């Protein structure tokens, strides 16, 4: 059996977590020992057939994998170009791709003898996915969330509380995802002995970007097999939204060596890149060091991290996973940006044409697909990662239309 935690494309990171000049371990001394312990545990269990079998079993019976690869026929016809397939991560248990990673990390936490789980969350999807696996394994769970995000994602806050997690509001800094991550790091440094920190994206210090990527590559592996089964072909383009970038890396990575497949990572342009009110470090930022790794950041001329803006809380992050920084510089992936309005238009279009309510995060990928598909011939194929469902965003969308739900 193929080991699902190896795509065969893991030339990077190197053994110190570097993707070219990016990644690495930029953490305070207290965390160096637990990061080493985590790396050693992960390297051991990723080769452990019992661990792999348990993870696969959970992904199948609990998460509901494989998620469908759906040919969006009406939308394809409307756009009049390449054929569009949607990888339906929205149909996973808890409603997004985030659970692929939390299942893996929670099993690791259990094997490492940790009794307490912490996590950061932006839109709340990772928080829900973490609270879910913690409930199932009977582990104490604390989720850090910016107080701004708590306001705009109240549904997910309540879901986490129902699942038994304690949601701690973070009111420092910009009161969003980056500050929640800071606070989770502070918790971890204080409680290193019994606590496992489940980071939700391909950022943070090594081994997180590698480990989270490996847990998410199930998306791309399935998509590759499914498309082959349905069409006998490889896709011509992959499109996924990028906040921290975990759903995108999960889709892209198994296709890294398939050079005919173009990658498009879609960042949040917020009010527009020209306004400065956006969350697009790859398109409009520059390299720096934050949250344990070197990567592209939104920062001012003094190296202070600046506030981001996006209609979608899950993309509202000033950094991005270091492997994306590397894929950008190496030219393997293209990074583009979609503004709030374009994402909303795509949200409505997919809902009406295909009967699928996408998350606002995923709507950024859909909006780029709207631009890309008409430029390609009808025999070409695009896979869009529909990374999450939009139920959590209904209040946001309704409010924009002046409707009280």
């Amino acid at each position, binding site marked *: 059996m193929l080991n699902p935690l190896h795509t065969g494309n893991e030339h990077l990171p190197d053994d110190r977590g570097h993707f070219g000049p990016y990644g690495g371990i930029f953490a305070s001394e207290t965390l160096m020992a637990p990061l080493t312990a985590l790396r050693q545990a992960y390297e051991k269990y990723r080769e452990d057939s019992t661990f792999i079998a348990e993870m696969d079993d959970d992904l199948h019976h609990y998460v509901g994998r494989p998620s469908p690869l759906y040919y969006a026929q009406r939308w394809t016809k409307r756009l009049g170009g390449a054929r569009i397939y949607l990888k339906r991560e929205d149909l996973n248990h808890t409603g997004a791709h985030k659970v692929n990673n939390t299942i893996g990390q929670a099993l690791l936490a259990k094997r490492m003898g940790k009794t307490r789980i912490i996590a950061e969350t932006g839109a709340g999807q990772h928080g829900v996915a973490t609270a879910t696996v913690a409930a199932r394994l009977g582990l104490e769970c604390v989720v850090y969330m910016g107080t701004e995000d708590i306001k705009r994602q109240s549904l997910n806050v309540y879901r986490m509380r129902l699942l038994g997690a304690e949601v701690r509001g973070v009111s420092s800094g910009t009161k969003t995802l980056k500050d929640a991550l800071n606070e989770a790091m502070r918790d971890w440094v204080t409680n290193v002995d019994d606590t496992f920190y489940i980071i939700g994206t391909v950022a943070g210090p090594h081994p997180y970007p590698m480990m989270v990527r490996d847990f998410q590559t199930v998306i791309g592996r399935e998509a590759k097999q499914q498309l082959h089964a349905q069409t006998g072909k490889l896709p011509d383009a992959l499109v996924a939204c990028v906040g921290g970038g975990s759903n995108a890396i999960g889709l892209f990575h198994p296709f890294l060596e398939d050079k005919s497949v173009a990658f498009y990572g879609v960042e949040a342009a917020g009010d527009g890149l020209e306004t400065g009110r956006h969350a697009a470090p790859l398109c409009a930022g520059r390299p720096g*060091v934050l949250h344990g790794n070197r990567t592209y950041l939104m920062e001012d001329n003094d*190296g202070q991290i600046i506030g981001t803006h996006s209609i979608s809380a899950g993309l509202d992050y000033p950094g991005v996973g270091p492997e994306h920084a590397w894929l950008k510089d190496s030219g393997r992936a293209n990074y583009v940006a979609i503004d709030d309005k374009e994402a909303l238009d795509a949200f409505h279009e997919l809902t009406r044409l295909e009967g699928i309510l996408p998350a606002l995060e995923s709507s950024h990928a859909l909006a780029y697909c709207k631009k890309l598909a008409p430029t390609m011939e009808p025999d070409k194929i695009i896979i869009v990662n529909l990374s999450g469902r939009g139920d959590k965003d209904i209040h946001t969308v309704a409010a924009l239309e002046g409707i009280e739900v």
Partner: protein
Amino acid sequence: MSRIQSRFAQLKNNQKTALIPFVTAGDPNPGITVELMHNLVKAGANLLELGVPFSDPMADGPVIQLASERALENGVSLSDVLNMVTEFRQNDPDTPVILMGYLNPVEVMGYDNFAKRAAQAGVDGVLTVDLPPEESDDLIKALHPQHIDPIFLLAPTSDIRRIERISSHASGFVYYVSVKGVTGSKAVDVDAVANKLAEIREHIQLPLGVGFGIRDPETAAQVASVADAVIVGSALVQKIETLSPEAVLVELPALVGKMRAAMDAV
């Protein structure tokens, strides 16, 4: 001999432990920082740690976080901090100054540029909290020709291999983080610190400073009996939250004076 080395040598001759107060540059306002530094020295500080404000101080508790936010609201940049050190040096050529902060502002300024400007300003040591020795080669290469010491942290979780690694990278002194946690989080366990310092001393000849969780003169005196330097941050900075700038210039040195007296009485 660097200013840090000679200061520790001089203290050792006098059988004294160094007292190192920490304040964030530009907190509560940039106008009083240099005067505050001078007042802290007069009150008995032997070295000074000057915090460089950063938007995302991951290793700091709420007290230093708020200090950083206040300084940033005042628009204080790394350049401004270096200017403050320049001004301080005009009247104090002897007291070592260590910059403590996070890597990103240094990255943006550029390692070589930063090292040159810091040396010109009269900075003696640089502690970047989120830069472990594994990633520090390039910065050390920039600091060494400028005779600036890279200061590294050790923690209760540091094993012998890490202690040895830090021994091979550090100069000036080594900063032992006395508790698992962020700055100002919990009280220090002096016995545990003494044991760990003994372990560290088998591998590191540099002076050992102890910080995090030292809140009052009694604890400062206890730690002084086992360490080469006592570092006090949150206990001082917390006072800034409620005091007028004029009172800050008096009250913070007053606490440092009490700590100095308690340490000297041991």
